[in-house]
């Protein structure tokens, strides 16, 4: 499959600079509205100002209306089309298919971050906070906690030093407090 991101591989120093150096989120709050091509998802974004890089960078938040799974991504279109750094709150575990990682350590469950290695290959990981089960659970359930974690991990904050908040612009759609599907509503035979 098209696993290797050639653009990130060829400009790995630039990629590292993008992820690691300080960034400012220009919008104090990120407003979620329904996605144009997929009504089951909400999306919102903010422009990011980087300390040393002048190219356009976007912070994008997406959330499912069905099971409250959410994702946070950073995109730099001039580097590559795919998001160059991501956070997934829920969903399948990622396989870190690298020869130096023992098989039973190759599975990284959600919530996790998705980044890239020097060879352009995607890698998923949990930082120290996500490795603690109670913290991970809290982050899965609270998108604002997730945004704060994402910002800390990527040296991103508001000009004031705080973290942005995520707001649902169409509050008549109730967010389910749990992250689970109600199986009782489906007539399995």
């Amino acid at each position: 499959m098209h696993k290797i991101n050639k653009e990130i591989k060829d400009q790995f120093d630039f990629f590292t600079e993008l992820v690691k150096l300080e960034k400012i989120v220009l919008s104090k709050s990120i407003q979620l509205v329904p996605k144009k091509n997929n009504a089951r998802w909400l999306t919102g974004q903010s422009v990011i100002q980087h300390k040393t890089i002048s190219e356009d960078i976007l912070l994008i938040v997406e959330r499912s209306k069905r099971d409250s799974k959410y994702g946070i991504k950073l995109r730099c279109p001039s580097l590559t089309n795919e998001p160059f750094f991501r956070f997934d709150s829920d969903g399948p575990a990622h396989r870190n298919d690298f020869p130096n990682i023992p098989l039973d350590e190759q599975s990284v469950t959600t919530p996790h971050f998705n980044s890239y290695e020097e060879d352009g290959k995607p890698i998923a990981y949990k930082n120290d906070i996500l490795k603690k089960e109670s913290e991970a659970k809290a982050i899965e359930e609270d998108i604002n906690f997730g945004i704060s974690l994402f910002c800390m991990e990527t040296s991103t904050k508001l000009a004031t030093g705080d973290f942005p908040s995520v707001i649902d612009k169409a509050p008549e759609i109730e967010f389910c407090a749990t992250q689970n599907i109600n199986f009782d509503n489906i007539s399995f035979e």
Partner: protein
Amino acid sequence: MNNQDIIDRIKASFCNLTNFKVRQNAIEVITAYSTITSKFVSVFITFTNNKIVLTDSGWIDQNYYETPLYDESEFIINRMISSYKASFNVKSILDKEGVEFYYKTCENIDQIPSAVFDLASFIVGVVNSFCIQYKDEKEEKERETFRKDANDYLKANYTDKVKLRSALDDFQSIKFNAIINKNSNLYLLTYVTGSNQIYFENDLRKSIVNFEIASKSKYRDIIKEKVTIINDKSDGYMPERSSFIFELLREKTSREPLKWSEKERILELI
């Protein structure tokens, strides 16, 4: 090399690769099976409406396994899903919002591990099927380009005397790339191209059969020429290798095929 050591390592790794997430109303089994999109497959076990149900929780339908989506492959993918469903005895149902859930049911907990195995194998198969591009883009492009170029050339030179993608009245389903009607004579033309030898020979075969059928038409006496325009610049053009089929074609046509690189000869002929 200590065999037992190797065996123990493999057993332990495979076993440890299976993880579990206990959710509010289900157990998520994060299985040891992964897709070619580098995701491990999850099977959800829940107890609902008095049944033990194992399901993908709609993750395939919502593309949580992050596969590409090739619209033109919809039919073939649906056939693959049906095949896998039959092999692993998996059923599906839509929820209220139209999301498809693939599932199996169990009568008791003893059946659960085997059902997890089946459903996980099903999910891997189906997700991987989505990833393959079934359409040969190179071939499609090559074919389209040649057809357009040939059509444009004939239109430019024969204007309303040429009908593209046309058929004889008595064999409506046999289409010729072009039929030229000039001075009460008909000229039947087929195009042959291909990005490899197989595709090229398929086109030759089609021409052979179509010209053979035309020879049975009531219009056969006014058909002055039956000729093939071959794209001699295509990768599939291998005259020595395809010599046998070229010979067969020659038996059905009124003359040797016309090469696209010598297209002016068409104008000399017609």
